[in-house]
Structure formats: structure tokens, C-alpha cells
């Protein structure tokens, strides 16, 4: 079996194993697994509206996933996509409210500013990683909390709209990202995400810089020896990853919510990181895994209405998938490195 197919097979097995464990949990809480899974499927794909709903959930996960893929490719871990999404969303909303422009330009400026905000948010972790080799996993995780709380503070104390809710006022209609169908809030953000995933994939495969980043991600000493400026490439990879994280926020803000509020995007950034991990950092694969997580999310809405199982069951199943996929990943890695050691250490 080839390398890639062995990898996909292993992970499919891991997901299956997680679903089996999920079945056990469902039985324990006193529900019928068949009914739960059927309802999930029904909720995710049962009608055009539901499919659109699933795709609506898929979009931010996909864009966040691509953001994570970019960093993984360079051997880096941007776990701060959630924070970049919040910053990007907030920045886009400010543009949407305060800078009146003609329709297309307004959207473009909002998106550009969202990307700049995401980039700015990862700039500090990126600098410290590139310059002082400070672990980017820790610094990007921590920056998430700051982003979520900071935007929340601004929303409540500075930009709150008159009235009860902790949210800003609406953005101008000229800044709306247009919807694709009349019956759903599903918007062109999905297309942006798909094009982005394919584009990033092609970029890594066919450009000199994409090649350099790929090699850096696999053997940084070899890349350095071959003349790749490591610091510069680390900086570029993380900034690009952060920009795409910000883009996800911009799409959510201009395409779905049309304003900023507390709890703007519940965990899309984290789901994106996991979708990317599950796809082994492959942008095209991330389209599939993001759809899977999107379907779980949208299916779980119906789950609460139609069964006694709570929506949290989905969180449990998701956690099980993460556990078993990472276990499979670690086992495969260890197998590889043990084989390598048998061969080279004496």
C-alpha cells in the first residue's frame, strides 16, 4: 500500500473506532444509536435547506482549516486560528459600519482589513518564533484568549448598540457578502473557501516558495543547507496562516452575522485546526474533513429537537475522534521512527 493510502486508511479506521465509542456513549445515555445517527444525517443532509445549513457551518471551518494547513506545511502549528478569526471578524465589522463605500469595494476592503487584522494578531508569536525560536503553539494558543476577551470588551464597552444585547450595530448593506440561494444565509464565502483550498494546494505544489516551505516543514536543516532563509520563511508562513484566519472572521462577519457580538464564532477556529490535522495538513483533504465537522454541527441541531440526546453528544463524539486520530497519528509516527532507528542507530 502506498504511503498516502496507508495514511488515509489508518485515519478512516480511527474515525470509525471513535464512532463506535460514540455509539457506546449514546447507549449509556439511554438513546438508540441508530436513531441518533439517522437524525444526525437527516439534520445535516435531509433537505436543500439543511444541506445549505451544513455548508454554512462548513465554510468557516474550511477557511480556518486552510489557515492551519498553511502553518502545518511549514512544520509550524498555528493553534491561534480562533483568535485570528475573532480579530478579523471584529475588524471587518468596524469597516462595515464606519466606512461607507460602494458595494463591491466595501466588501473587498472589509475582507482585506480582516486579513490584515488576523495577520497582525499572529505577528507577535510569529516574530518570537522566527527570531528567538519561542514555541508558537503556546503563544498562539494564549493569544486566542486575549483576542476573544478583547473583542468582547470592545463590543460591550465601546461599540455596543443601544439596547439590551452585547453586540455592535449592523454593518451597512453595501458590506454584505452576497448570499448564494434565497432560502439560506449560505454565502459566497463557501466559494472563497473552496477556491482558497485548491489555490493553496497548487501554490505549495508548483511554486518555488511553496516548495521551500514544504521542505522546511519536513527537514529544516536540509532546507537551511539548501539556501532557504529559515527565519524569513517562518515569518511568512505564520503571517499567511494568520491572514487566512482573519479572512474566516471577515467572511463570518460580512456574510452571516452582519455585526459583531459576544461568542461570535463558537469554536470554528479549533474545529478548523482539527479538520486540518485530520486531513494531514492537506488543503484538499481539509474540504472533506471540514464538511464532516460541519455536518456534525448542523446535524446536532435537529438532534436536540427530535431525540432525547443532547447536542453535547456531538462534542463528545468530536472529542473521541480527535483522541483516536491523534493516537493513530502518534502510533504511525512511532512506527516510522522506530524503523528509522533500527536502520540508522548503532
Amino acid at each position, binding site marked *: 500500500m502506498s504511503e498516502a493510502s496507508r495514511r488515509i486508511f489508518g485515519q478512516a479506521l480511527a474515525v470509525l473506532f471513535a464512532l463506535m465509542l460514540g455509539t457506546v456513549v449514546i447507549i449509556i445515555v439511554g438513546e438508540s444509536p441508530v436513531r441518533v445517527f439517522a437524525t444526525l444525517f437527516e439534520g445535516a443532509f435531509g433537505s436543500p435547506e439543511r444541506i445549505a445549513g451544513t455548508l454554512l457551518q462548513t465554510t468557516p471551518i474550511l477557511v480556518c482549516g486552510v489557515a492551519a494547513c498553511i502553518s502545518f506545511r511549514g512544520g509550524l502549528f498555528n493553534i491561534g486560528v480562533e483568535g485570528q478569526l475573532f480579530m478579523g471578524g471584529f475588524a471587518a465589522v468596524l469597516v462595515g459600519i464606519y466606512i461607507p463605500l460602494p458595494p463591491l469595494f466595501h466588501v473587498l476592503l472589509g475582507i482585506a482589513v480582516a486579513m490584515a487584522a488576523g495577520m497582525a494578531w499572529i505577528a507577535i508569536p510569529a516574530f518570537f518564533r522566527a527570531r528567538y525560536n519561542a514555541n508558537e503553539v503556546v503563544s498562539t494558543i494564549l493569544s486566542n484568549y486575549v483576542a476573544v476577551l478583547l473583542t468582547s470588551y470592545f463590543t460591550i464597552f465601546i461599540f455596543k448598540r443601544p439596547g439590551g444585547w452585547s453586540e455592535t450595530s449592523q454593518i451597512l448593506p453595501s458590506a454584505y457578502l452576497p448570499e448564494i440561494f434565497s432560502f439560506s444565509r449560505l454565502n459566497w464565502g463557501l466559494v472563497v473557501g473552496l477556491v482558497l483550498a485548491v489555490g493553496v494546494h497548487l501554490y505549495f505544489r508548483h*511554486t*518555488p516558495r511553496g516548495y521551500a516551505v514544504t521542505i522546511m516543514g*519536513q*527537514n529544516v536543516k*536540509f532546507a537551511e543547507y539548501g*539556501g532557504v532563509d529559515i527565519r524569513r520563511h517562518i515569518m511568512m508562513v505564520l503571517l499567511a496562516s494568520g491572514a487566512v484566519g482573519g479572512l474566516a472572521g471577515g467572511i463570518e462577519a460580512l456574510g452571516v452575522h452582519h455585526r459583531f457580538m459576544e461568542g461570535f464564532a463558537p469554536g470554528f477556529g479549533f474545529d478548523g485546526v482539527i479538520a486540518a490535522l485530520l486531513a494531514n495538513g492537506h488543503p484538499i483533504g481539509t474540504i472533506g474533513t471540514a464538511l464532516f465537522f460541519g455536518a456534525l454541527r448542523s446535524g446536532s441541531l435537529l438532534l436536540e429537537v427530535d431525540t432525547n440526546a443532547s447536542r453535547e453528544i456531538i462534542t463528545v463524539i468530536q472529542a473521541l475522534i480527535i483522541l483516536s486520530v491523534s493516537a493513530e497519528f502518534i502510533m504511525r509516527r512511532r512506527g516510522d521512527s522506530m524503523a528509522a532507528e*533500527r536502520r540508522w542507530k*548503532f
Partner: protein
Amino acid sequence: MCGFVCGSGAGVGYAVELKGVTKRFGTFVANDRIDLAVRPGEIHAIIGENGAGKTTLMNILFGLLQPDEGEIIIDGRPMVVANPRVAIGAGLGMVHQHFKLVPSLTVAENVFLGMEIRSGVFIDHRAQIQETERLSRAFGLKVDATERVGLLSVGIEQRIEILKVLARGARIIILDEPTAVLTPQESRELFQTLRGFVSQGMTVIFITHHLEEVMAVSDTVTVLRHGKKVDTRPTAELTKNELVQMMVGRSISFDRRRRETVTGDTVLSVRDLWCRDDRGLPALRGVSFAVRAGEVVGIAGVAGNGQTELAEVLSGLRRASHGSFRIGARDLTGASPRMIRSAGVAHVPGDRLVRGVDRQSTIAANILMGSQNTPPWERRGLIDWPLVRDRSRKLMERFDVRAPGPDTLVKSLSGGNMQKVVLAREFSHDAPCLLVDQPTRGVDIGATESIHDEIMRQRADGRAILLISVQLDELIALADRILVMFSGEIMGDLPGDDVSEESLGLLMAGVRTEPEEAAVA
């Protein structure tokens, strides 16, 4: 040779005896029927080059590896050392190359980790500290038992590792390259400690590849080469030169290549170059030389005398602390690897797995490295992969890389074929200057011959070649001049067509003489 070992061994018995120990990793034979006899109360050095099988042999003795064949006898009793616990029970202790200490715990806590002295359910810290201090005094290993390990220097950490071994009651102590991490000062202190051990009736086995250490501290020395034992001799009977001969050997003798002498312009010139190694110690101390076009200049030396660092500085991977080097008229001191590459330097690194290849990538992707931004491989911002594959296919043929095709992953190749991928890439850049570090390490004879052919072809094409090798016969076969490095300095500059392994050996051992005298010696 037998007279010494057999004679004094009669009736005394050995502390450790290995008989016919063989260990294979796949088709690679790491230890080939090795016999080893260590007398009680001696310091027994095991010396050999990297990959000679020293560590494997000691790991077998300590139960970390199981031999495929052979016998282990400790204190006259044949034993199956199934795991380190058995070895410790038999009175063995091993200090590894890489320390295994917990930085957040104190010295005493580390010494007794896993065998804590208890009072009831609690750890008796006071007793542990007292016992650590007692051992420290008894063996002259000065430590503060209450200090946290994370705050201590590497030299002290090693003392703690030795204390750990002592606390477990070891009488036969194995040290794997103990001086690799130490400063010269710390090394001298360690040797004193080892002397102290034997004077108290203990036995010490230590692994090294430094001749001076063998001469300075050991009673007996066993030389390993390519997984085989060369000999065991009393140290006092040996000279450094003989030891070098035994280590390096001359099993494969290549004929010196016939060639025209082509004298071109100076391509690489190095002036008073200094640098530090990873520990911050001086690795190069004022190296100066020049390489002309159409010339192969060899760098000889026992591994670890600054050769690798020299190649790293010249390729931009390591900073020079002083001095300069030029390619042609251009000063490239402190330039980035990319600038140096584009100035016309190709580099075959000494450790192909670390620097030479990316094992996860295809052969084509490995061949591309370094030219991904240069036409025709890059056109209008895109890599021309079909062209790269085509080029790789041709190079694979020319360099005899045995693999299904350019899309084969490098990690599925054998060591020799990986090395050929590295050479194919570096030799095809048409760079005027080639840095070639250990081109045939781990490569079989047939491939070695073809690699040598390729180096000579590059020479004929007028390249300036700096060839670093620990194999003297390789240097003698290929080099026009041989520079000998010893502890970061160039000890001598010998013409390649009039040089003997003996004269090189003396210089490699750090004895500075005129070539004529060396030949006489």
C-alpha cells in the same frame, strides 16, 4: 599481543569477558564476532571511529540490546543479560552519552530516583542527602546534594550520572564517550576520578574516539573498526601513531589516480579562520589555505578535530568568529547559505541524513533543492516539474542511483543510493568550488569507486575541490595535497603524490614534525 593478555589473565579471571559477540541490524553487521576481555581493576578504553560498533557492544553488555550470537561472562559467570536490571544486579553501571536527569529535582533526588530511601511512605530526604554526600566524598565527585540539577553545568551533571551508578552498587563502570560534552579541564578531572575508581578496586570501561584520552588514562585499549575487533593491547606498548593505524586501517587500498597536473587560478582562499563548536568551544583555530581550480585538496584528521565545522563555515551554516574566506575575489565571510551557493559553492554534507536529503520527499524534489529559484527549473514563478523529473532521471542514470524513478521517496533508498542522490544534486550545479565531506561514508566498494571517478571527473572539469575524509586511502588516492587537521589547526600540508599513511598518522595524532622526519619515524 597474546602474551600480555593471556599471561596476566591466568588464574586472575576477568571482570568482563565477551566471546564471539555478533549483532546484526538487518543486513548491517554492527558487531562481528567480537571478543573482549577486561581485567578487574583496570581502565579499559574502547576506541574506534564513528560507526565502528563501540556503543552497540556496550549496549549489549549492559542489556540494552540482545546479541545475535556470543557469550557474556561477568566475574567468571556466564550470564544472559536480558535487560539493564540484570546488568546492574551483576555489578555493572553505565553512564550514557546523553544524560537522563530531571532538571527540577535536586542532586540527591536524582541520584536516588527510582530507588528512593524511605521512612514509612515518605521519602527520607535527609538520608538521601547524607548518602549522596558520603558517595561524593568517597569518590571525589564534588557536588552540592541539595542543588537543583537544572542550574548545574554539564560537567556536574555527568558527576551526578556517575553518582547514580555508584549508588546502585556498580563495581564495573561503563562510560560512553564521557568527554564528548566536557571541557578539557572537566575531562582532566574526570580522568582523575576514574583513576580513583581503579585504585579502589573497581573496573572502568570507557568508549572514546580520542587518541589522547586513551594515552592519558587507559591501561589497556581495544580497537574496533567496521564492527570488528582489530586488537587489544596494553596502552604503554603503543604509540599514538600505531593507534591511528589500527583505528583507520588500510583494508581497502585504492590506487592513486593518474592525472595531469592542471594549475588554475585560486578559487577558494581561507585566511586565519576561527569558529566555535556547538558547545561554544573553539573548533577552528586559525585555519588558512587555498584551493585552485582543477585541484583536489584533502583534509585528513581523526573525526571531531574541526573538519565538519570547517565545511559548515565555508557553506554558511556556521558563523566564523574570526578570519575570512573568499570565492574568487569575493569575500563571503558571514554570507547566507543561499548567497554562498549562488556564488558558486556546492556542498556534500558529512551527515547526509541531517543535511543532505529530505527523506520524506521524492528524489526529484531532493535534486531540485538549491535551484528552485533558477531558470530553467523555475519559469514564470512556477516550478517546471516535468523538466525536473526529466533531469532527475538523467542524473539517476549518470550517478547510478538504483530506484524505480524520480518519484521514489528518498527514505526508501539505501544509504549508498541516498549519498548518490546528494552527489548528483551537488555535482550537477556546475559550481566552481565543491566542498565534499565524507563522500563515501557508509557506501559499498563498488559505489565508492564510481563516486571517486565522479570526483576526478569534476577535477578534470576544472573545479576546485575540498575533500574532507577520515579515510586516508581515499585521500591518498584522490588528493593533490593533503592538509592534516588536529584540534582545529592545520598540522601539515603534504603533497599527495609523496605521502605515507605513517607520516599522516603522526600529524593526525598531533605530533608536529617535518614530513621528512615523519617518514623516517
